[in-house]
C-alpha cells in the first residue's frame, strides 16, 4: 500500500487490512470417578489403576470400564513404580510451546502389573541408548509439589536392571 493511500485524515497507521478474530472456548473438564482416583494417587506419588473383573486386565489410568468386556472396573489396584519401555521415539523437532530441551525421548511405559502402557518422558540416559525393553522407574517431583496431575511424575529413568525379555511385553507394543 503506497503512502497516503486510503488513509483517514487523522491517522498515520494506514488503512486497516487485518482483523484479529480469536476464538476461545472456556470449559470445565470432569475427570470422572476412575480417573479421579488415578489423579489422587498421583498426588500421593503412586500409580493407581483398575482391574477388569472379567479379563483381569489392569488399566492405568482407567476410564472406569473395560473396553474389551464392557463392564465397570471397580477393583482398584496400586501399581509398581517400575516398568518397561515398550516403544519410544526421539523428539528432535522443535515446536511451539515446547518445554523440554531437544533431543528427548518420549516412550510408552508399561508399568509392572499393568496391561496397558502410557506415555512418559525418559531422562538420565543418552538418547541413543534408549531401547525397547529398557527397565525404568518413575521419578516424582518433590513431595510438597505433588498434585493430582501427571506433572507429578518428572520423568522415568533407567533402573540399571537387565532389559526385560521381549516375550514379557510383546503383547503391549
Amino acid at each position, binding site marked *: 500500500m503506497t503512502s497516503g493511500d*486510503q*488513509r*483517514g*485524515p*487523522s*491517522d498515520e*497507521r494506514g*488503512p*486497516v*487490512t*487485518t*482483523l*484479529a*478474530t*480469536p*476464538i*476461545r*472456548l*472456556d*470449559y*470445565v*473438564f*470432569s*475427570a*470422572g*470417578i476412575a*480417573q*479421579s*482416583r488415578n*489423579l*489422587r494417587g498421583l498426588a500421593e506419588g503412586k500409580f493407581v489403576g483398575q482391574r477388569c473383573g472379567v479379563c483381569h486386565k489392569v488399566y492405568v489410568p482407567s476410564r472406569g470400564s473395560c473396553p474389551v468386556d464392557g463392564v465397570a472396573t471397580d477393583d482398584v489396584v496400586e501399581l509398581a513404580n517400575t516398568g518397561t519401555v515398550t516403544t519410544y521415539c526421539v523428539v528432535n523437532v522443535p515446536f511451539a510451546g515446547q518445554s523440554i530441551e531437544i533431543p528427548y525421548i518420549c516412550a510408552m511405559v508399561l508399568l509392572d502389573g499393568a496391561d496397558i502402557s502410557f506415555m512418559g518422558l525418559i531422562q538420565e540416559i543418552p538418547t541413543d541408548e534408549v531401547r525397547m525393553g529398557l527397565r525404568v522407574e518413575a521419578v516424582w517431583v518433590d513431595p510438597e509439589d505433588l498434585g*493430582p496431575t501427571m506433572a507429578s511424575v518428572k520423568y522415568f529413568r533407567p533402573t540399571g536392571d537387565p532389559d526385560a525379555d521381549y516375550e514379557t511385553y510383546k503383547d503391549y507394543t
Partner: protein
Amino acid sequence: MADSADDVLTSAHVLEYPYSRSVGPVIGAFLTGLRDGKIIGATGSGGVVIVPPTEYDPYTAEPTGEMVEVGPEGTVESWAWVGTPAPQHPLETPFAWVLVRLDGAGTSMLHVLDAPSPDAVSTKMRVRADFVAEGERIGRIQDIRAFVPAGSA
C-alpha cells in the same frame, strides 16, 4: 466439598486460537472508518447504500461502488432484549441486540443498544453510535461501544 475418595475432580480449561484474517478493500475501508469514528457504507447497483459494506451487490452480484459515510444516527428496525448478559457479550449490563438502519443507509446493521430496560426500547426509536475514545479505536466493530438513545448524553 469434602475430599472423599469418590469425589470427581474437575479442572478449568481454556482452548484459544489467535486467528487474524485479512479483510479486503471494502471491509477494510469500513474498519478504517470505524477507527476514524465514522461509519462507511458502499453504494450498491440501485444506489442503495449497504452497511456494513459488501464487495458485491447482493442482488445483482455487480461490484459495489462509491464508499459513503452514513449515520451516526439511525432508526431501530428490530430488537431483542438480553436481560442476563453472558461473559462473551459486548456489554456487561443488560442490553438489546438491535438492527439499526443508519441515516443514509438502505440496509440495517446488527449492533447492541445500551438502554436501561426493555421499556426504553422500541422499533422506530432513534439511536446514535457511541464510539470508544479515539486513542482506543483500532478498526473493529467494537470501536462502536454501543448504540444509545439519540439525544442522550
